[in-house]
């Protein structure tokens, strides 16, 4: 590939005074000055959160109001900064959801450690943990920012669920047991 | 009122001037020189030559002392060594002789009535009067002064120039 040397054109007299260029620049800035501001006045106006935004991790319930987490602890293992602590517990035999067998007794996410990588959401087989749209998080003490289970459910709310895996399982169990008896 | 002003301005001229001569830090000396020159400009105002007062501030305080400060900063000439005691004594003697001589001379001339010691109400030396004088009676000195400025400018450029060596790069003469 041959190198092509471009001769620079000598500047004309008007260009050498730089005045036309300066006036051109002033025109551009004036044009910008007359445009409305492009910024968002943040605390008053909130930005639109796109779908798939990875904000604060939360726990969600299914539409029936049952907690989806089965405390398999996959998220705890995958979490790179080790922000998640789960104390597994069993579901009482006489409960309506006894067929799920396990539920977290305690579920903590340390928001000071969380790096919002989204691995927990990705790894969760139950689609129980989601990084939702909260992007601004603050608190007055370290303890306050270690979110407990109830807090996580409170900010997580309910998300639609297509599978109803445990409902189907219960129905199957019921059908099977009905068949036997 | 005017007497008091005169005394204040005279102090403002003399005391900083002494500090210029004795202060060991050149920056202090330069700042004292400004005070002295501003005092001098104030005395010109007392003498009703307002144009000269302003020129004094403009040229001396505005340009010359700035130039001094610039050079002081450039060559980093802080804290000159203390002069020798002998030099100090000899200079003080010279100062005493000169001042007594001047005061004595003035007093003697006054006694002989050599000077008109009254201030009459003369028309103030306006800028217009200066222009007329400069371009009629003093046109030759005016041109010579301009020529001197040109010579000084060229001289300064020649003195401060760094010579180019054969390769065309700058090199200080050494």
């Amino acid at each position, binding site marked *: 590939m041959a190198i092509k040397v471009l001769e620079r054109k000598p500047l004309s007299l008007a260009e050498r005074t730089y005045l036309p260029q300066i006036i051109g620049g002033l025109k551009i800035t004036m044009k910008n000055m007359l445009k409305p501001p492009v910024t968002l*006045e943040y605390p008053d106006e909130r930005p639109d959160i796109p779908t798939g935004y990875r904000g604060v991790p939360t726990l969600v319930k299914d539409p029936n109001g049952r907690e989806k987490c089965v405390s398999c602890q996959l998220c705890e293992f995958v979490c790179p900064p080790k922000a998640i602590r789960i104390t597994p517990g069993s579901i009482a035999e006489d409960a309506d959801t006894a067929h799920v067998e396990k539920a977290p007794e305690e579920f903590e996410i340390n928001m000071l450690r969380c790096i919002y990588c989204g691995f927990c959401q990705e790894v969760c087989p139950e689609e129980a943990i989601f990084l939702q749209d909260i992007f601004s998080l603050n608190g007055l003490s370290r303890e306050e920012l270690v979110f407990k289970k109830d807090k996580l459910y409170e900010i997580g709310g309910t998300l639609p669920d297509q599978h109803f895996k445990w409902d189907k399982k219960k129905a199957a169990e019921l059908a099977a047991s009905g068949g036997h008896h | 009122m005017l007497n008091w002003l005169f005394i204040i301005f005279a102090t403002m001229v003399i005391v900083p001037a002494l500090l210029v001569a004795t202060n060991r830090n050149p920056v202090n000396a330069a700042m004292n020189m400004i005070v002295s020159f501003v005092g001098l400009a104030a005395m010109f105002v007392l003498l009703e030559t307002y144009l000269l007062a*302003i020129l004094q501030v403009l040229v001396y305080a*505005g340009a010359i002392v700035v*130039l001094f400060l610039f050079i002081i900063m450039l060559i980093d000439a802080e804290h000159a060594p203390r002069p020798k005691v002998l030099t100090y004594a000899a200079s003080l003697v010279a100062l005493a002789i000169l001042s007594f001589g001047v005061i004595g001379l003035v007093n003697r001339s006054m006694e002989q009535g050599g000077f008109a010691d009254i201030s009459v109400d003369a028309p103030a030396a306006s*800028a217009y009067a200066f222009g007329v004088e400069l371009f009629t009676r003093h046109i030759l000195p005016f041109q010579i002064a301009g020529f001197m400025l040109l010579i000084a400018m060229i001289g300064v450029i020649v003195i401060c120039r760094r010579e180019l060596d054969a390769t065309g790069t700058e090199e200080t003469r050494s």
Partner: protein
Amino acid sequence: MNWTELSILLLKAVAMIGVVMTLAGYSVVLERKVAAWVQGRPGPNRTAPPLLGNIPVVGRLLTRMGLFQLPADGLKFLFKEEPVPGHVKKFYYVLAPVMSFVPAIVIMTVMPFGQFIDSTGQVATLILTDLDIGILFILAVSSLGVYGIILAGWSANSKYPFLGGVRASAQMISYELAMGLSILPVFLWVGGTLSLTSVVEAQAGLQWWILPQWTIIYQPVSALIFLVALFAETNRLPFDMPESETDLVAGFNTEYGAFKFGLFFTGEYAHILLGSAVFVLLFLGGWTLPGLPVLAGVFGAVISVLIFLAKVLFMVFLFMWVRWTLPRFRYDQVMTLGWKRLLPLAVANLIFYTVIIAVIEQF
């Protein structure tokens, strides 16, 4: 002079200082606003004092305009801790902000800002002291402003302020020459006087019912040189060598904080304001509008002052507009522009107008 006269004079002076300093403060707010507008932001629009900000419509409007930002900033400067670094030269360190601030206040005394015509038709200029060599006085005193910067740079006793001080001294000397030479043709043009009032009076009226008599129309080159030199003398952005943030941290005021920095800051804007005022007086017709005679009475006087203020504020706006448009020069480019371009241009301009005026006077 009795006490009543003295106190009236004193009151006038204090009022003038109050108005100019308030305007200087608000030009800081304007600067921030202009910067924001150029960059597509709304600028300072939050600060609201408890009671004033709660007035239904007006309070909200004033808050959005950022008008309460100035007292907030001023109080911040006042109440901050005043650090004095251990390595500075104390006396000059304290003296420097004052030195950069005082010339601006002194220049105010000879700045005419309006005209009052009483019922008998007697014309009086609104000015504290009408000096017949006013412009020389302004040049002389404003040239003292550089000491603030030099002393700040030197007394801080550290390298960046020092470089800022050295640059300031060289730049100020260089551009003062071009500035002085560029205003000479103006005074030749208006005919043998150095008084600012007469310059303004010569610019009133219309030529051929269409052309304003402003000097900028007749002497665009003088106006251009003066404007460029003004930018350099006030250390505004294409020429802010003493304080170039990118290579000198904050230049000469690196070691300053709190109220001393506030003095430097306000002093800079006061210089801009007064420089704009001089430009308006010399080139833009001062308090006159073409084809509009100054009315008699207090009302006419107020109108003339308002016209003058409007022109000055436009010039201040131009300063800011240019600042947020142009990049900074390199130091050697500043020197080249000053000595090799502006100075010869100013000399040629002076000679050209001298010849022209001589020719006009012949016929």
